[in-house]
């Protein structure tokens, strides 16, 4: 989740000063990334949308405490991850993931909500196959341990560098790599079991 090129340091400064237009600019630049992390971490579109909005509210409320504008990107990732962890715990306490309410993006009627960016050249069969794969991957992710899911989402779905992950998670690169490998192997096992 690298800072999009359009975002300027000045925008962050204006946002800190309480400029709502600058805040809107920040939201528009980061909303998709934030929403995708929350969605992959929670697996539910409504929860993910609500959580992403909460993330931006937190940003608006606490951006004045941000000391270095240059670190806004890392700061936003941290807020997003903390919100995801808290919401996950909250939903788990309420046994949300044990119920049938787990949102399935493939089966949702509203295509706009769950539309996956796909190759326009894909034929309907390929598109369907991709949706099935999406469903399998998302369910596989939800069956992983929380920290394993975080690693896979950040590295394999969001394309974070090991350096970024180390900074965000507060772990050495080697530890992240070994943990990530274990998470991938576990996901492979989950997908194998669900496919058969």
């Amino acid at each position, binding site marked *: 989740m690298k800072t999009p090129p359009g975002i300027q340091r000045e925008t962050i400064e204006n946002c800190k000063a309480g400029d709502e237009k600058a805040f809107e600019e920040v939201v528009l630049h980061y909303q*998709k990334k934030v929403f995708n992390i929350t*969605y992959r971490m929670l697996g539910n579109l409504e929860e993910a949308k609500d959580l992403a909005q909460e993330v931006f509210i937190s940003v608006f409320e606490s951006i004045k405490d941000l000391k270095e504008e240059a670190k806004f990107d890392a700061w936003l990732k941290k807020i997003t991850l903390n919100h995801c962890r808290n919401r996950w715990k909250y939903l788990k306490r309420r046994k949300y993931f044990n119920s049938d309410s787990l949102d399935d993006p493939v089966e949702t009627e509203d295509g*706009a909500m769950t539309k996956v960016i796909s190759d326009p050249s894909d034929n309907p069969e390929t598109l369907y196959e991709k949706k099935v794969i999406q469903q399998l*991957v998302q369910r596989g992710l939800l069956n992983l341990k929380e920290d394993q899911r975080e690693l*896979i989402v950040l590295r*394999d*779905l969001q394309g974070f560098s090991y350096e970024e992950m180390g900074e965000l998670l507060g772990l050495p690169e080697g530890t992240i790599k070994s943990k990530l*490998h274990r998470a991938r192997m576990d996901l492979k096992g989950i997908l194998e079991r669900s496919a058969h």
Partner: protein
Amino acid sequence: MDCEEARDRFSSLWEKELIPSEENKVREHLSSCPGCQEEWGRFEKTMQWLHSAGEVEIPNGFLPELYKKMGERKSKATPTEKAKGGWVSLPQSLKLPVQAVAMVAIVFLVLYLTKMMPIERGRLRESKPISSPLFAEKKSEQVFAQKEVEKERRAVEFHPNTRRSEDVEQAKTPVPGKKKLEEAYGPQMKAEAPSSKTEVGTNPPIDSRAVARLKVPSPEPKEIEKGLTAKDKLVAASKPPREIVLRISNQERMISLVHELVREFGGEIVTSEGNMVLASLPTNSFSEFENELAGLSASIGTDKEDVKGSLRGEPSEKREEADVKSQGSPRTATDQEKHTVVRILLIQE
């Protein structure tokens, strides 16, 4: 390279992070081990699926909903912030010093309360006996006098027939007593004690004495007062008369003899009614007068009773002195010192 070592490097092989020599070793193992080759195939597929997942589009109306939520939060938070005086909205950089100062203030307050207060109390205790012995004495006198008056009042209330109505009136309220005092002391006391309330605080000896006088049982206070001159009244009021009882056979003769004797000793008859003679005698010749009076009686059935003198004479004299000093009248003081009032009762045998 064994299977475990090869499988541990799947992630690194996928990300092409292995050095060429190590990558070759892994690939060599995979080509020679069908189990690891199959595992590697599944791993590759999982990674492909993950990377093919792509990004999900942002739901419509994300931003308007966000603004709506923020508006709701703001409207909810505003009254709370107002109630808290905007403390929550203050930046941390301001809050922390204020909190630190408050903490220090609390610590100092606690230290003051625990350490300083006992010293203050000690000082107060020390200063009390120095500054207020007179006040304490006055207070105790007041309390004692009040108790005495209260006792009398109760006694009167419980045994109304045992006391004369005048005494009852005297005892019921301190005001008549005060009136009598005023009569006895004249305008001087009025000037000194303008009100009963201030009297308690400012001039309690007068008040206590008045109460003490009220307490002394006097057989004929009305008669005594009638015959007293202003001077004698003062003496009588401040000093209870001594009492001498003479048992005689001839009352009239004895009365005239007593009169003569009083005059002889430089005294004067205050009143003489029936079998009672009230006389004022110089104090220095009083003992001689007493002896002479005893010798006069033919029957010599003299039965002297120095009731009040012996019982209350000394403390009352002391009080008199104090009172005289407080009144600041030298003439009255000398009169009190020089004269003794005696009541002589003649009992016919």
